[in-house]
Protein backbone atom coordinates (compact mmCIF):
# COMPACT_ATOMS: atom_id res chain seq x y z
CA UNK A 1 0.00 0.00 0.00
CA UNK A 2 1.19 3.51 -0.79
CA UNK A 3 2.74 4.95 2.38
CA UNK A 4 1.36 8.46 1.90
CA UNK A 5 -2.13 7.14 1.21
CA UNK A 6 -1.99 5.15 4.44
CA UNK A 7 -0.98 8.32 6.33
CA UNK A 8 -3.82 10.30 4.74
CA UNK A 9 -6.34 7.63 5.79
CA UNK A 10 -4.94 7.73 9.32
CA UNK A 11 -5.02 11.53 9.37
CA UNK A 12 -8.65 11.64 8.27
CA UNK A 13 -9.60 8.98 10.82
CA UNK A 14 -7.86 11.03 13.53
CA UNK A 15 -9.69 14.17 12.40
CA UNK A 16 -12.94 12.22 12.57
CA UNK A 17 -12.09 11.03 16.10
CA UNK A 18 -11.31 14.58 17.22
CA UNK A 19 -14.71 15.76 15.94
CA UNK A 20 -16.41 12.85 17.70
CA UNK A 21 -14.66 13.53 21.00
CA UNK A 22 -16.34 16.93 20.94
CA UNK A 23 -19.80 15.65 19.93
CA UNK A 24 -22.54 15.52 22.57
CA UNK A 25 -24.00 12.18 21.39
CA UNK A 26 -20.64 10.46 21.52
CA UNK A 27 -19.93 11.91 24.95
CA UNK A 28 -23.30 10.63 26.17
CA UNK A 29 -22.53 7.09 25.00
CA UNK A 30 -19.04 7.19 26.48
CA UNK A 31 -20.50 8.36 29.79
CA UNK A 32 -23.04 5.55 29.67
CA UNK A 33 -20.12 3.17 29.12
CA UNK A 34 -18.56 4.55 32.29
CA UNK A 35 -15.68 6.03 30.32
CA UNK A 36 -14.17 9.41 30.77
CA UNK A 37 -12.67 11.25 27.82
CA UNK A 38 -9.65 13.19 29.00
CA UNK A 39 -9.66 15.89 26.31
CA UNK A 40 -8.22 15.72 22.83
CA UNK A 41 -4.69 17.08 23.44
CA UNK A 42 -3.03 13.71 22.85
CA UNK A 43 -4.96 13.25 19.62
CA UNK A 44 -3.90 16.71 18.47
CA UNK A 45 -0.28 15.80 19.20
CA UNK A 46 -0.56 12.51 17.29
CA UNK A 47 -2.12 14.47 14.44
CA UNK A 48 0.75 16.97 14.34
CA UNK A 49 3.34 14.17 14.20
CA UNK A 50 1.45 12.50 11.36
CA UNK A 51 1.10 15.78 9.44
CA UNK A 52 4.84 16.36 9.61
CA UNK A 53 5.45 13.07 7.80
CA UNK A 54 3.27 14.01 4.81
CA UNK A 55 4.78 16.04 1.92
CA UNK A 56 3.56 19.70 2.14
CA UNK A 57 1.97 19.75 -1.35
CA UNK A 58 -0.16 16.68 -0.55
CA UNK A 59 -1.01 17.97 2.90
CA UNK A 60 -2.13 21.26 1.40
CA UNK A 61 -4.42 19.36 -0.99
CA UNK A 62 -5.76 17.34 1.95
CA UNK A 63 -6.65 20.55 3.81
CA UNK A 64 -8.32 22.07 0.76
CA UNK A 65 -10.43 18.95 0.25
CA UNK A 66 -11.35 18.84 3.94
CA UNK A 67 -12.38 22.47 3.80
CA UNK A 68 -14.46 21.94 0.69
CA UNK A 69 -16.07 18.56 1.39
CA UNK A 70 -15.42 17.69 5.03
CA UNK A 71 -13.69 14.53 3.75
CA UNK A 72 -10.43 14.37 1.80
CA UNK A 73 -10.15 10.61 1.39
CA UNK A 74 -12.97 8.64 -0.17
CA UNK A 75 -13.38 4.90 0.26
CA UNK A 76 -13.80 2.88 -2.93
CA UNK A 77 -16.39 0.14 -2.59
CA UNK A 78 -17.78 -1.96 -5.44
CA UNK A 79 -15.68 -0.02 -7.90
CA UNK A 80 -17.20 3.35 -6.95
CA UNK A 81 -16.02 6.42 -5.09
CA UNK A 82 -18.26 6.33 -2.01
CA UNK A 83 -18.36 10.12 -1.78
CA UNK A 84 -19.48 11.15 -5.28
CA UNK A 85 -20.43 7.66 -6.58
CA UNK A 86 -18.51 7.92 -9.82
CA UNK A 87 -17.20 4.61 -11.15
CA UNK A 88 -13.43 4.27 -11.00
CA UNK A 89 -11.50 3.08 -14.10
CA UNK A 90 -11.78 -0.67 -14.76
CA UNK A 91 -8.03 -1.27 -14.48
CA UNK A 92 -8.25 -0.24 -10.82
CA UNK A 93 -10.84 -2.76 -9.68
CA UNK A 94 -8.31 -4.73 -7.61
CA UNK A 95 -7.57 -2.98 -4.33
CA UNK A 96 -3.91 -4.01 -4.29
CA UNK A 97 -3.51 -2.14 -7.59
CA UNK A 98 -5.69 0.81 -6.53
CA UNK A 99 -3.92 1.36 -3.21
CA UNK A 100 -0.45 1.02 -4.72
CA UNK A 101 -0.35 4.66 -5.76
CA UNK A 102 -1.85 7.91 -4.59
CA UNK A 103 -4.86 8.52 -6.83
CA UNK A 104 -7.63 11.10 -6.93
CA UNK A 105 -11.25 10.65 -7.93
CA UNK A 106 -11.74 11.91 -11.48
CA UNK A 107 -14.93 13.72 -10.49
CA UNK A 108 -14.59 15.02 -6.91
CA UNK A 109 -10.80 15.02 -6.63
CA UNK A 110 -10.69 13.28 -3.27
CA UNK A 111 -7.88 10.82 -2.58
CA UNK A 112 -9.11 7.28 -3.20
CA UNK A 113 -8.72 4.39 -0.79
CA UNK A 114 -9.78 0.89 -1.82
CA UNK A 115 -11.42 -0.67 1.27
Amino acid at each position, binding site marked *: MNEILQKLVMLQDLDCMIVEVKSKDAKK*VQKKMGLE*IKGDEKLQNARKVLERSIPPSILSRYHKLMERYGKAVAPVVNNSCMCCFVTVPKRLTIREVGNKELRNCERCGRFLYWV
Partner: protein
Amino acid sequence: MKQSDLLNYFHKDLFIPELRALSKDGVLKEMAAWLESQKKVYKTSIIYDLLKNREKLGSTGIGGGIAIPHCRSIAVEKLTVLFAIKSKGIDFKSTDKKSVKLFFMVAAPPQDVNYLVFLGKLVEVLTDKKIKKMLLKVKSFEEFKNIVSGVK
Protein backbone atom coordinates in the same frame (compact mmCIF):
# COMPACT_ATOMS: atom_id res chain seq x y z
CA MET B 1 -32.17 -1.71 19.00
CA LYS B 2 -33.19 -4.94 20.75
CA GLN B 3 -30.77 -7.20 22.60
CA SER B 4 -31.22 -9.93 19.98
CA ASP B 5 -30.38 -7.42 17.20
CA LEU B 6 -26.86 -7.23 18.57
CA LEU B 7 -26.20 -10.73 17.29
CA ASN B 8 -26.65 -9.58 13.69
CA TYR B 9 -23.26 -7.92 14.03
CA PHE B 10 -21.43 -10.94 15.48
CA HIS B 11 -20.00 -13.69 13.28
CA LYS B 12 -18.23 -16.93 14.02
CA ASP B 13 -15.20 -15.92 11.92
CA LEU B 14 -14.90 -12.77 14.02
CA PHE B 15 -14.36 -14.63 17.27
CA ILE B 16 -10.97 -15.38 18.89
CA PRO B 17 -11.45 -18.13 21.52
CA GLU B 18 -8.12 -17.42 23.20
CA LEU B 19 -5.88 -14.42 22.61
CA ARG B 20 -2.12 -15.04 22.60
CA ALA B 21 -1.18 -11.46 23.46
CA LEU B 22 0.24 -10.67 26.90
CA SER B 23 -0.14 -6.88 26.96
CA LYS B 24 -2.71 -4.20 26.22
CA ASP B 25 -0.98 -3.15 23.01
CA GLY B 26 -0.53 -6.79 22.09
CA VAL B 27 -4.27 -7.40 22.40
CA LEU B 28 -5.07 -4.44 20.15
CA LYS B 29 -2.49 -5.56 17.59
CA GLU B 30 -3.65 -9.19 17.57
CA MET B 31 -7.28 -8.18 17.18
CA ALA B 32 -6.52 -5.67 14.42
CA ALA B 33 -4.45 -8.33 12.63
CA TRP B 34 -7.38 -10.74 12.90
CA LEU B 35 -9.58 -8.19 11.12
CA GLU B 36 -7.02 -8.06 8.31
CA SER B 37 -6.82 -11.86 8.13
CA GLN B 38 -10.61 -11.96 7.73
CA LYS B 39 -10.39 -9.28 5.02
CA LYS B 40 -12.37 -6.78 7.08
CA VAL B 41 -9.56 -4.24 6.83
CA TYR B 42 -6.82 -3.86 4.25
CA LYS B 43 -4.05 -2.85 6.66
CA THR B 44 -3.70 -3.85 10.31
CA SER B 45 -1.65 -0.76 11.16
CA ILE B 46 -4.43 1.70 10.27
CA ILE B 47 -6.89 0.24 12.78
CA TYR B 48 -4.19 -0.58 15.35
CA ASP B 49 -2.83 2.98 15.41
CA LEU B 50 -6.32 4.41 15.61
CA LEU B 51 -7.31 2.16 18.52
CA LYS B 52 -4.09 3.06 20.32
CA ASN B 53 -4.92 6.74 19.84
CA ARG B 54 -8.41 6.11 21.21
CA GLU B 55 -6.90 4.51 24.31
CA LYS B 56 -4.90 7.72 24.87
CA LEU B 57 -8.21 9.44 25.65
CA GLY B 58 -8.84 6.94 28.45
CA SER B 59 -9.01 3.16 28.63
CA THR B 60 -11.97 1.46 26.99
CA GLY B 61 -11.93 -1.12 29.75
CA ILE B 62 -15.42 -0.56 31.18
CA GLY B 63 -14.80 -2.60 34.31
CA GLY B 64 -15.94 -6.02 35.44
CA GLY B 65 -13.44 -7.80 33.16
CA ILE B 66 -14.74 -6.28 29.92
CA ALA B 67 -13.22 -3.87 27.38
CA ILE B 68 -14.72 -2.34 24.26
CA PRO B 69 -11.94 -0.87 22.12
CA HIS B 70 -13.71 1.09 19.39
CA CYS B 71 -13.12 3.50 16.55
CA ARG B 72 -14.49 4.89 13.33
CA SER B 73 -12.39 4.45 10.21
CA ILE B 74 -12.81 4.55 6.46
CA ALA B 75 -10.69 1.41 6.48
CA VAL B 76 -13.78 -0.68 7.28
CA GLU B 77 -16.69 -1.12 4.89
CA LYS B 78 -19.39 -1.62 7.53
CA LEU B 79 -19.86 -1.89 11.29
CA THR B 80 -17.61 -4.77 12.33
CA VAL B 81 -17.38 -6.46 15.72
CA LEU B 82 -14.64 -8.80 16.83
CA PHE B 83 -15.12 -10.72 20.07
CA ALA B 84 -12.09 -12.20 21.82
CA ILE B 85 -11.32 -13.96 25.08
CA LYS B 86 -8.20 -13.92 27.22
CA SER B 87 -9.14 -16.41 29.92
CA LYS B 88 -6.30 -15.45 32.28
CA GLY B 89 -7.14 -11.78 31.90
CA ILE B 90 -4.89 -8.88 31.03
CA ASP B 91 -4.15 -5.46 32.54
CA PHE B 92 -6.05 -3.07 30.26
CA LYS B 93 -5.90 -0.06 32.61
CA SER B 94 -9.63 -0.42 33.20
CA THR B 95 -11.61 2.04 35.27
CA ASP B 96 -11.94 -0.52 38.11
CA LYS B 97 -8.30 -1.69 37.69
CA LYS B 98 -9.49 -5.29 37.25
CA SER B 99 -7.93 -7.45 34.56
CA VAL B 100 -9.91 -7.84 31.33
CA LYS B 101 -11.03 -11.20 29.99
CA LEU B 102 -13.56 -10.26 27.34
CA PHE B 103 -12.80 -7.90 24.46
CA PHE B 104 -15.31 -6.49 22.01
CA MET B 105 -13.55 -4.56 19.27
CA VAL B 106 -15.95 -2.34 17.34
CA ALA B 107 -14.99 -0.53 14.13
CA ALA B 108 -17.33 1.35 11.84
CA PRO B 109 -17.07 3.71 8.87
CA PRO B 110 -17.49 7.42 9.74
CA GLN B 111 -20.97 7.67 8.22
CA ASP B 112 -22.42 4.63 10.02
CA VAL B 113 -25.53 5.73 11.91
CA ASN B 114 -25.81 2.54 13.97
CA TYR B 115 -22.38 2.82 15.56
CA LEU B 116 -23.34 4.76 18.69
CA VAL B 117 -26.67 2.93 19.01
CA PHE B 118 -24.83 -0.39 18.81
CA LEU B 119 -22.21 0.68 21.37
CA GLY B 120 -24.91 1.88 23.75
CA LYS B 121 -26.87 -1.37 23.50
CA LEU B 122 -23.73 -3.50 23.80
CA VAL B 123 -22.77 -1.72 27.01
CA GLU B 124 -26.28 -2.10 28.37
CA VAL B 125 -26.17 -5.87 27.80
CA LEU B 126 -22.60 -6.33 29.01
CA THR B 127 -23.22 -4.46 32.24
CA ASP B 128 -26.23 -6.60 33.13
CA LYS B 129 -24.89 -8.51 36.16
CA LYS B 130 -26.56 -11.81 35.28
CA ILE B 131 -25.41 -11.75 31.65
CA LYS B 132 -21.92 -10.59 32.55
CA LYS B 133 -21.49 -13.44 35.04
CA MET B 134 -22.42 -15.97 32.36
CA LEU B 135 -20.31 -14.30 29.65
CA LEU B 136 -17.17 -14.40 31.78
CA LYS B 137 -17.40 -18.22 31.64
CA VAL B 138 -17.94 -18.42 27.88
CA LYS B 139 -15.62 -20.72 25.91
CA SER B 140 -17.25 -20.85 22.49
CA PHE B 141 -19.05 -18.59 20.06
CA GLU B 142 -22.21 -20.72 20.33
CA GLU B 143 -22.30 -20.26 24.11
CA PHE B 144 -21.92 -16.52 23.65
CA LYS B 145 -24.75 -16.42 21.11
CA ASN B 146 -27.05 -18.42 23.37
CA ILE B 147 -26.46 -16.11 26.29
CA VAL B 148 -27.02 -12.89 24.34
CA SER B 149 -30.09 -14.26 22.56
CA GLY B 150 -31.50 -15.29 25.93
CA VAL B 151 -31.55 -19.04 25.23
CA LYS B 152 -29.29 -19.83 28.19
